[in-house]
């Protein structure tokens, strides 16, 4: 009897500890995002109140002023165009390559795979200077084309690497059946394998899209005005002597929001893609 009672207090303490640790964790990781998001709908006075105001009357003036800024809306449009072109091109080039690397039986294949993966490890700061100088000569500085090229370079290896693991899982029997029916290799790839891995393609597209959408350094260096992506665009609100925190928050929430929505709906694939890639390493 006594022993049981002792155990249960122990369990209660353990449970209590568990929930305190859990809440502290969630608080540390989520609070900044919440605080920042609410800042975009607080008046300047409320935002700088100390102690922080947990209850306030929401205002949308920051969003109004942010979307009234033509430079910012253009940068948003740029980001949309650039990121979608990046996804499109990296799929068009990456899918056949991934399929090929999954099916070829040469020894060199592994060397190529490792090389492709290693390009994702390149420090961006090392290759940005050559890009800057080369773009200057080719007149690609501050153009969307230039931005798509560099983001495509970042997304392509990810696409190939991820899609290869998905193609590896396609049952060969399915492809053999089509081959007996007289289907060409490319036909099999287009009509059999691609539909089978369509979920993987979705996950991969989201990955590449986030890569392109979130990128900052290349956008900062390789654009001036016309092709500026939104991640660089939000910086304009801190250009003046006093930093417009409300506008920065509103602009940031605007570019953060689609990423959070996409990753919420694709959470399963994102976690899978992440761990699958890591486990195969």
């Amino acid at each position, binding site marked *: 009897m006594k022993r049981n009672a002792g155990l249960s207090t122990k369990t209660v303490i353990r449970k209590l500890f568990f929930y305190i640790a859990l809440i502290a964790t969630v608080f540390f990781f989520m609070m900044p995002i919440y605080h920042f998001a609410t800042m975009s709908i607080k008046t300047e006075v409320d935002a700088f109140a100390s102690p922080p105001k947990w209850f306030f009357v929401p205002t949308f003036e920051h969003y109004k002023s942010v979307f009234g800024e033509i430079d910012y809306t253009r940068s948003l449009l740029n980001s949309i165009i650039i990121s979608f072109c990046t996804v499109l091109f990296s799929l068009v080039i990456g899918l056949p390559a991934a399929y090929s690397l999954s099916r070829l039986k040469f020894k060199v294949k592994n060397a190529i795979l490792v090389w492709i993966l290693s390009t994702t490890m390149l420090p961006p700061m090392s*290759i940005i200077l050559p890009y800057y100088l080369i773009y200057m000569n080719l007149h690609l500085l501050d153009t969307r084309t230039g931005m798509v090229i560099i983001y495509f370079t970042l997304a392509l290896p990810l696409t190939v690497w991820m899609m290869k693991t998905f193609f590896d899982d396609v049952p060969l029997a399915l492809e053999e059946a089509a081959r007996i029916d007289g289907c060409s290799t490319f036909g099999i790839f287009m009509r059999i394998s691609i539909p089978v891995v369509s979920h993987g393609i979705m996950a991969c597209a989201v990955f590449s899209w986030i890569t392109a959408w979130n990128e900052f350094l290349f956008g900062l260096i390789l654009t001036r005005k016309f092709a500026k992506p939104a991640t660089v665009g939000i910086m304009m609100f801190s250009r003046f002597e006093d930093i417009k925190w409300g506008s920065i928050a509103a602009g940031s929430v605007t570019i953060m929001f689609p990423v959070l929505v996409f990753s919420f709906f694709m959470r399963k694939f994102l976690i899978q893609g992440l761990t699958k890639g890591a486990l195969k390493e």
Partner: protein
Amino acid sequence: MVRGIETKVQTYEGMQRSENRTLILMLVPCVVILFLTTVAPLMHLLYTSTLDWNLTKPFAKEFYGIGNYVWMFTDDEFYDAVGVALQLIFESVFLQIVLGIALAELLAVDFKGKNLLRTLFIFPMVIPPVVAAVLWRIMYNPRAGLFSYFLGLLGFDVAMLGSSETALHAIVIVEVWQYTPFVLLMFMAAYSVIPEELYEAADIDGAGWWGKFCHITLPAIRPMIIVAVLFRVIGTIKVFPTILITTHGGPGTSTTTVNFYTYIKAFEQAEVGYSSAVGVFMFVMVIATIMVIRYMAKFLGGTE
């Protein structure tokens, strides 16, 4: 009869050959493009690193040999930057791994809302790094910052970003905040494939929590730890928006990492030749890191 079989074999081989031809054709564009977009710029970088070239002096572009490298290895600011980078890497990767394991251990039990929590943990790591940087700059703001506010409640009265002693730790906190979830999700995946029977057997043997952790969990997730360290070390070498936006390398040079030093030299001081040399150094360091960690993985028998 025999002829018939022969032609059949030939067509099969022919098919195999044409299949291979198609497959190689499908691979070529990707390899060519990646070569042009990654190897070619690196060659260009190697070339500019041998030039005495400052963009503000357009006619002073001449061959300089290993001059830039000599400059680099005799440059005190460069060594400072290496030191800052190493401190940032050690502190933040260490904290991420330890916290990641602790949280994975905490979340190993089943409870209501575990899936929701897993989803929430994706958020810090997918938000644009520049947004994370702006967000933390506000968190550290002495007037409006939530973080400063809580520090104040605890009795600390520091503007984390304003002092050269705490600025780097402030960057570490941002890194830990953004990428511990990444490490955690990797460890949670590793946990999920550990067979339950091992723990049951340990329970029967009367093993405590610590014993189970050391003898079952840790060996089982060791390969994942090595992968996580590799990913995070490489990732931390590249930290950029956080430093640019929260501290701009300051106060003084207390948060100027090698990566940020390259940026300042290249795009604020237009020292193309010199910054190319630092860029080459960084590239070599990344390769070396990968090789060292892979070697350690083999040495520790981590990769099964």
